[in-house]
């Protein structure tokens, strides 16, 4: 047993770190440091830089543009990405729809979509949740009826995040209302320009119109845009659940926030002394670090196991990553808000969206509250923490 990285892994870390240090555009890094929202163009620009390097989708099969890295290297890549304030490659493209197309797409779908997904020539959004189907996703009702070479889709999707930036949507629709609920679902790729598809923006607590509601009124989708077989969509969507565990905990993001909180707390005075010297604040921050340290080792154990085994097996630690990872991400944003104090009170949406440099109070404090508000979503999306508890209870503890 040896918990240290090998010299080759350390050299790889240096290489990745150096690349991020020299390749990440300064304005993007600056926005990330300040907790501002990135524009669509920022994310596109960065992903094209990654794609040029061959790192846009490291874990895809090599034949489709993956790197062939093992789980440890991917973990290091993710950690350095987050430590460097670099944005993630677009998750919808790279982690969600891409692997499904790689695994189940037709040759035509692969040829058309995969290069464009890597280069972010096509931006995908997700059409899973509905007003009546959140945690119980399989109860979804958006209906698709086959008419010749097309499906005609009617219904409503919710939480279409970044839908206003998207060119395409991957969606789950009901094709057989009489089958058992998981059985009658089909996975479709839908062009956002299709007539009958409309979006209504939803403003989240941070003030950013970040997500949407989508309405489908006789939206005609070519059958050639179906993934795999009709009524097997649930299986393809579930395939995703096994993906993307190595980086789910976002230890690197949390670490840099802890460092930021400590540095920023040195600039805030409480009772005539820097907040960073306040025992209560210091101990709160130290406790987050302790939990983060435990999570990092847990993450390394999961990664080590992934590297050594073929295929994924139930590992209780993988669920720990999701539950603790989300809690700690939230804790780091919570403590930044506490450090900001009254400076967090002014609502400065233009600054949050990086549309102005004008700011009331310290710049870092201007985004503290909206980022804290939005962080509450982390334990809700992608399967709420309560659903995670249900899964672990059943699958790991056998209750």
């Amino acid at each position: 047993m040896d918990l240290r990285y090998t010299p080759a892994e350390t050299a790889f870390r240096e290489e990745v770190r150096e690349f991020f240090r020299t390749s990440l555009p300064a304005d993007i890094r600056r926005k990330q440091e300040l907790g501002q929202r990135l524009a669509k163009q920022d994310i596109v620009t960065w992903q094209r830089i990654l794609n040029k390097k061959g790192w846009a989708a490291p874990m895809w099969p090599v034949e489709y543009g993956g790197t062939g890295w093992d789980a440890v290297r991917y973990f290091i890549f993710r950690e350095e990405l987050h430590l460097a304030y670099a944005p993630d490659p677009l998750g919808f493209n790279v982690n969600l729809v891409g692997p499904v197309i790689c695994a189940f797409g037709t040759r035509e779908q692969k040829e058309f979509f995969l290069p464009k997904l890597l280069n972010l020539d096509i931006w995908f959004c997700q059409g899973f949740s509905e007003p009546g189907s959140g945690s119980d996703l399989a109860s979804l009702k958006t209906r698709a009826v086959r008419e010749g070479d097309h499906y005609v889709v009617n219904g409503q999707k919710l939480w279409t995040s970044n839908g206003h930036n998207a060119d395409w949507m991957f969606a789950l629709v009901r094709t057989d209302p009489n089958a058992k609920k998981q059985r009658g679902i089909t996975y479709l790729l839908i062009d956002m320009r299709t007539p009958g598809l409309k979006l209504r923006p939803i403003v989240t607590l941070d003030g950013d119109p970040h997500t949407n509601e989508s309405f489908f009124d006789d939206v005609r989708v070519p059958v050639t845009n179906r993934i795999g077989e009709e009524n097997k969509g649930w299986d393809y969507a579930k395939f995703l659940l096994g993906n993307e565990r190595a980086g789910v905990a976002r230890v690197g993001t949390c670490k840099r926030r802890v460092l930021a909180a400590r540095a920023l707390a040195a600039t805030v005075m409480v009772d005539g002394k820097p907040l960073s010297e306040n025992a209560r604040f210091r101990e709160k921050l130290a406790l987050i670090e302790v939990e983060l340290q435990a999570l990092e080792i847990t993450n390394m154990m999961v990664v080590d196991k992934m590297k050594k085994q073929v295929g994924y097996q139930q590992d209780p630690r993988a669920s720990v990553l999701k539950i603790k990872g989300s809690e700690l991400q939230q804790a780091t944003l919570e403590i930044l808000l506490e450090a900001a104090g009254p400076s967090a009170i002014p609502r400065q949406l233009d600054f949050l969206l990086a549309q102005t440099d004008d700011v009331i109070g310290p710049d870092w404090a201007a985004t503290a509250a909206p980022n804290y508000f939005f962080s509450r979503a982390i334990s809700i999306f992608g399967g709420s923490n309560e659903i995670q508890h249900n899964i672990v209870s059943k699958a790991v503890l056998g209750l």
Partner: protein
Amino acid sequence: MDFDLSEEQRMLKESVDRLLEDRYSFEQRKTYTKAPDGWSRELWQQYADLGLLSVPFDSKYGGFGGGPVETMILMEAFGAALVLEPYFATVTLFGGCVRIAGTEAQKDALLPKIGEGKLLGAFAHSERNSRYDLADVQTTAKKDGSDWVLDGEKTVVIHGDCADKLIVSGRISGGQRDKDGIGLFLVDAKAPGVTRKGYPTQDSLRAADITLKGVKVAAGDMLGESGKAFPIIERVAQSAIQALSAEAVGGMQEMLDITVEYLKTRHQFGVPIGSFQALQHRAVDMLVATEQARSMAMFAAMMVDEKDDAERAKAINAVKVHIGKSGRYVGQQSIQLHGGIGMTLEYKVGHYFIRSTMIEILFGDTDHHLAALARAGGLIAPGTTA
């Protein structure tokens, strides 16, 4: 990075697991508590025969030559079985002092005997007022010709009642809480002037308060340099915390397993109580805490021999904070989820709860270590980011 055990480590784990499986059922354990020492001399000899008592010692002294990972393996198994024998006192603390600070002659004289099961030791350091301050030593050590004379009182010396030899800390110079001026002395437990008052501890182990009155110690029985013992004491305490963290994880896993089993078998309202979501989620939180604690026990094994004093100290602070918190959580929930049966001494789970509570107190509680970590500037080094 590799979390797999080596072949030797796997064999060590198998042999200790097998022994405890055969000899340490909850019922068997009860009979050991009734022995004169409160533990089993016969099992002690078996540990010696299997080489367990020399695990951290160099092969030069007849040892297994193991490191922190081997200690982790043993202590986790001991924690799962609630082992009563004085391994921690003799091998980790007493043996640790000798291993870290002993001269060749001292190691030659003591370590092989420990390994053979022929020498029991205890670390007589803490005093009534010292609480968690390792530098707080009032017991005096005065020079008498080339000898030393010790006077004072040591309290709650774990397994001090059965020890053949003690390592006693004494103040040679300086104020009560000065780090400088402390010495460590090897003292025969039956030496003139040593009186011991043994008693049971909350967790069915044994301890003693020890009074030293004009106890003479030969010059050759000092460990380390005169007045420079504090760093040794700190290292031993860090090794102790590493060992305790693994023991705590062994206990937490048992509490989790016993509780989950109970949730499956106990029926109320016509169904197993494990079908209730409120209890399921609590059990999952116990699992999360246990897995995180396991990670910290590994972190402890990785960091306890770290060369950089400050990094090592902070890491061990962090380990103790986590073990304290997670052990308390898992312990309390294991009682709560059992309901009334969890409150009885006849049932196993409460014994783990009690032991984990004692582990939280030993060598500094959660608040103590959290404050120390915070004062030292936290865990994550500023150079971590690009």
